[in-house]
């Protein structure tokens, strides 16, 4: 059910680069601007597809391969589209000993996605993260910016199904 690799956005339609250009302009005199620029462009466009990377490279006067070097190094840059709801399952030590592995499996059972994958309807993305830093309430997950703690696998399943029923 995971989506096919889709790293270009154009497919015949026009891309509006205005937001990207504005962000690059804001940082043009900054030293070490690459990461904040990528973060903000990703925030604006959802993910970093090839046309936008080329555009950033032009704007920052860098080569695209330098930019890709940075993108692929960090876990929080994405070259594929992401789901409306990003389920972050904490796989930190505390969560691990409290059984978080099972929670990832429940996501897979419900939506057929593994770590890093997005469901075909672009509704859910599963992301195993190293530590959310809420170890006191392990096991913990985040769905977008909302944190859920002290979860049992079946409670987690119920939460996922509630999100699945949300419209839109």
């Amino acid at each position, binding site marked *: 059910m995971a989506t096919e690799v889709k790293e270009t956005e154009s497919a015949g339609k026009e891309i509006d680069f205005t937001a990207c250009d504005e962000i690059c302009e804001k940082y043009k005199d900054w030293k070490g601007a690459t990461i904040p620029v990528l973060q903000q462009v990703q925030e604006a466009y959802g993910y970093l597809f090839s046309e936008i990377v080329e555009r950033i490279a032009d704007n920052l006067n860098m080569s695209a391969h330098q930019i890709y070097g940075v993108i692929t190094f960090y876990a929080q840059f994405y070259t594929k589209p992401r789901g409306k709801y990003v389920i972050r399952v904490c796989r930190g*030590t505390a*969560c691990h000993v409290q059984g978080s592995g099972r929670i990832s499996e429940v996501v897979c059972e419900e939506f057929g996605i593994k770590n890093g994958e997005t469901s075909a309807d672009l509704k859910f993305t599963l992301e195993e993260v190293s530590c959310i830093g809420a170890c006191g309430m392990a096991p913990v997950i985040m769905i977008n910016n909302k944190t859920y703690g002290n979860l049992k696998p*079946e409670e987690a399943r119920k939460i996922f199904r509630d999100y699945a029923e949300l419209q839109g």
Partner: protein
Amino acid sequence: MSYTTDHVEVHVCMGTAGVASGGHEVMEALEQEFAKRGLKNAESKERNCAAKQTGCRGLCARDVLIDVYIPGKEPVTYEHVSAEMVPTIVEEHIVGGNVVEKWAAKADYFQFYDKQKRYVLADCGRVDPESLEDYIKLGGYEAIKKALTMTPEQVIDEVKKSGLRGRGGGGFPTGLKWTFCRNSPGDHKYLICNADEGDPGAFMDRSIIEGNPHAVIEGMLIAGYAIGCDEGYIYCRAEYPLAIVRVIKAIKDAEAAGILGDKVFGTDFHFKLKLKEGAGAFVCGEETALIASIEGERGMPRPRPPFPAVKGLWQKPSNVNNVETFANLPGILLNGSEWYANIGTEKSKGTKIFALSGKVKSTGLVEVPMGITVRELIFDVGGGIPKKRKFKAVQLGGPSGGCLTPDHLETPIDYDSLIAAGAMMGSGGVVVMDETNCMVNVAHFFLTFTQRESCGKCIPCRIGTKTMLDILTRIITGQGREEDIDLLLEVGNDIKTASLCGLGQTAPNPVLTTVKYFRHEYEAHIRDKKCPARECAELIEFVVVDDRCKKCGICKKACPVDAITWEKGTVAYIDKSKCVKCRECIVNCPFNAID
């Protein structure tokens, strides 16, 4: 608790755990209740009530926690508070004057604090982290004012005499580190706060920033003045959205008040501060990798020398310290180095914050004097192991550290004793494990993490961690070979010797210590194809043992796929064609009856 107010104040825990448990809803309910009952009257002491958001007070397991302060009375703490409980608390306690005993924290709550000494965290849980005025009201920014009346050398001297050592893991003497950067030639120097707290199982830096961001800024001002830096960065990991929001606000407020920027408090000391958000890479906790990341590069470590103190950020002399180190500084400056040096042990001074988690009753953030024993930390502060299970091991120092066993319970917790025992202080993550945790599985878990986070620059770490992970995967899936244990030790020691940075040099530690103390578990996996803790699903048979089964039926209820048949008075039976090996039955069975 010496905090006093001139009106009724209710402090609501709004750290990450507090918010996740419904902190916002409790705040809102309080505000509504106060408004409804006319309790927002500034004219009257008793009828002037305020709800105040505060940071983490430590015992995250019992969130939402609230403290009710009424002038002239002892403060009262309520635990597990929900919005529905608020009207009763306001009605009976704040209006009626009678504490709602059934929800008030009892002796077991206070036991958590008995052996703690909260200096660094003292104001986390009292101060509103989003209010500069509140921080100043509680004595904030007095330490930097005092420092500005001293010479930079005197400040460094004071920190040296205090014996403060870096809290990020290495334990290098802070004052000495500063001297290197101060003595380095250059007119422009950088100060960096390492808030890239990547160790799974550690969250003290997050809690400090979320709970008291101005304390970190004040610590940075002190360090910046002492070293001679005019520009600073806080490098915070992106996984901490709340911390980022609060630090940005704190910087803005401090700038507006003339505390940051040109002429700090009207003196000739200038200090600009910026926040840099990480992008998800554990290795960036290593100082040279962190510097590369601020420069906008792939966050890969650089060979040392040159050390950052000589050539750091953009080739300028730079000094990197951890959040907790900075947060220690205001106290040292205000109370003096002698006061500080009196806390802790001979070589490890002061207090250390630990993130207590895993199989322990009171999970959360604790601050204890250096030298407290492992037993006191786990059993007195943490309240021991839940579900009447046995303590098996404790992992100290995260993926770089090692585990200690019941034989080490009397070990004092300080930098040097822990290293001697085979673990390390690390950033202060303490993950407790009970008899249901498999140590080979834990080692596999850590290697999965370090292998994934290895940046790939140097070969011993890149290939070595992969090799170790392959061997461990083989062992936990029943494919282990007789020679595997020796191979793990050999590869592990090679990685430690030959890696470029701290990540590789410490990555094998969890494997090496678990082999040292739990070799029999490795052997059981390899020779008998059995996981004694019944955690490695491939090595579990999933059969109910007749004479241990008490016929209670709990396993049937726990099974998510209906693979278990059970009727009252009969031994349960697991249908292997339906079983998905999720281990829910094993986790829930109170009698260890499933093999």
